[in-house]
């Protein structure tokens, strides 16, 4: 029994691994032939290089220096003019790319991990009280007005700089978890999982070694979607005074610009919105192409 079960588990795992490999190689082929997707990825990479440069201290370092005049116009020294206290708008906008990637990556990675783990557990133990509790938690988090939740987290954490990130992670993981849960429910009825049960492989090994790798494509697509959502949410939160605490971000710049645009000073607003639009648009298109390539269910 045990030997037979083991072979069966091995064989089933192998066929599934084969379909998985073919899914990825097909996806790679499809994505490579998707011109818009490749262009979008190129743009995202350019942004990423700029962010890396800021992080390494190569450029964008003069974001906080107060040097120029109030609302100075474009000049050789200040490429995009200066803001109300004479800071360089160009440097601030460039530095904000780093902020955006920081927020996007932290939130996307952590919320995806959390969603994957909790979703997989809920799906694997479908119908049990563990599942019920996780489902209940997701329902609860989805029903609390988001901005109130962020505000509450910010207060509860006493102005901790990463409270915005935490709040976003705490809310964004539910979508990923629902998708993963559905997929795991489908996967756990495969023969190889049953065979693994039969030969006594521990549950957590079955979940994380045998099942989770087969949800990777969902996680990848989902994390790109969360990345975009995080960047867009930051802008609103910063405007509401709940966002970035240290440094500068597009949200802070746009929030600042609300005081100036009606007086005819558009530098802050234009610099931040154009850069932000470029990144979000490219990322949206990239996410789309990724989904086209990886999600067999997606209709086009």
């Amino acid at each position, binding site marked *: 029994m045990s030997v037979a079960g083991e072979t069966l588990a091995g064989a089933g795992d192998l066929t599934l691994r084969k379909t998985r490999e073919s899914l990825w190689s097909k996806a790679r082929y499809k994505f490579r032939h998707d011109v818009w997707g490749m262009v979008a990825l190129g743009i995202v990479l350019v942004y990423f290089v700029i962010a890396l440069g800021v992080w390494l201290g190569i450029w964008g370092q003069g974001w906080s220096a107060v040097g120029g005049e109030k609302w100075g116009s474009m000049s050789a020294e200040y490429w995009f003019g200066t803001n109300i206290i004479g800071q360089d708008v160009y440097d601030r906008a460039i530095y904000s790319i780093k902020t955006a990637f920081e927020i996007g990556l932290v939130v996307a990675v952590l919320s995806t991990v959390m969603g994957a783990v909790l979703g997989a557990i809920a799906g694997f133990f479908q119908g049990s009280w563990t599942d019920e509790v996780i489902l209940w938690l997701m329902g*609860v988090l989805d029903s609390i007005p988001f901005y*109130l939740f962020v505000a509450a987290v910010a207060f*509860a954490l006493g102005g901790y700089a990463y409270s915005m990130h935490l709040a976003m992670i705490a809310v964004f993981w539910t979508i990923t978890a629902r998708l993963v849960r559905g997929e795991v429910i489908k996967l756990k009825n495969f023969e190889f999982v049953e065979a693994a049960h039969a030969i006594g492989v521990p549950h957590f090994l079955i979940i994380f070694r045998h099942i989770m790798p087969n949800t990777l494509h969902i996680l990848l697509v989902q994390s790109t979607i969360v990345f975009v959502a995080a960047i867009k949410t930051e*802008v609103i939160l910063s405007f*509401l005074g709940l966002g970035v605490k240290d440094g500068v971000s597009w949200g802070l710049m*746009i929030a600042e610009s609300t005081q100036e*645009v009606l007086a005819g000073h558009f530098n802050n607003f234009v610099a931040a919105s154009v850069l932000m*639009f470029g990144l979000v648009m490219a990322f949206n298109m990239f996410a789309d192409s990724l989904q086209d390539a990886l999600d067999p269910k997606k209709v086009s």
Partner: protein
Amino acid sequence: MEVLRFAIKKLIGGIPLLLGVTFISFLLMVYYGPDKTYELLGKNPTTEQIAEIRHELGYDKPFLVRYGDYLKEIVTLDFGYSDSTGERVNRILKRTIPISMAMVTPGFVLGNLIGVILALTAAHFRGRWMDKLIMGGSVVGMSISLLIVVIAFQIIFSSSYGLDLFPVRGWEVYNVTSYIQYVTVPTLVFIFVSLGYNTRFYRAVIVEEMERDHVRTARAFGTPPAKLLYKNILKNSMIPIITRIMFSIPLVIISGSLVIETYFGIPGVGKVTYDAITTGDQPILKAVVGLTAILFVLTLMATDIMYKMVDPRVSLK
């Protein structure tokens, strides 16, 4: 009768959700929330004064008792008085909710309606340039932040740098003309921001439905394309469409109006909530969270009943 029994069952089923939402919100917002003791005291308060204020605010009661009090407030729908203005919370809500409804309804309805129409058009021309144009436009719309749209529209429609057609901010509505004056720009913002997401979602739903066998049957029996779309396909797509519309209602009313009302200085429930966040006005926050949770449970219930209306296969059991 069947519907009534179902509604009651759903309401009871919603209790765990209600408890969860209120508990987490209470924990974060009230228990770990801002401490108002010293704001209300004069300089150099004595220990007795401090104790007295803490007693007045209820801070000295055990946690569960305070949470119980909150639940009682929700059940009786009586949320006490605002910390900052001293006005009855219920009165504030009664005044501000209608304003928010008046502000979001046109944009919400049009955003979904135009979304469905664009989605039907795109699906009809699936794969052709019209489809690509609409879907490309949707991605652009999805990529522009709400805040950017708000500012840009204010510049375009309400400032001397643009058309200068509508008031910059505020809400002085006393008749239809003034309503249109003040509601137009927020409505346009709402439509612009939601249209991309809506169109994409609805198109995906409709295209999926178009590939079903029964649509092929209808075509094989000579159904003209327009009728195919609005009769055979649209009604079948109603479940996901209703789900999306219904579930965006609680979120849109609170979250969407929060930003727009704050920016345009419209005294709706969103603005009140924002002010309560910044000043730590707990009675108002407690009321907003509690009511949203109730709204969610009601929405869940209403959605299931609507499913039954559009799809004969759904039973309310």
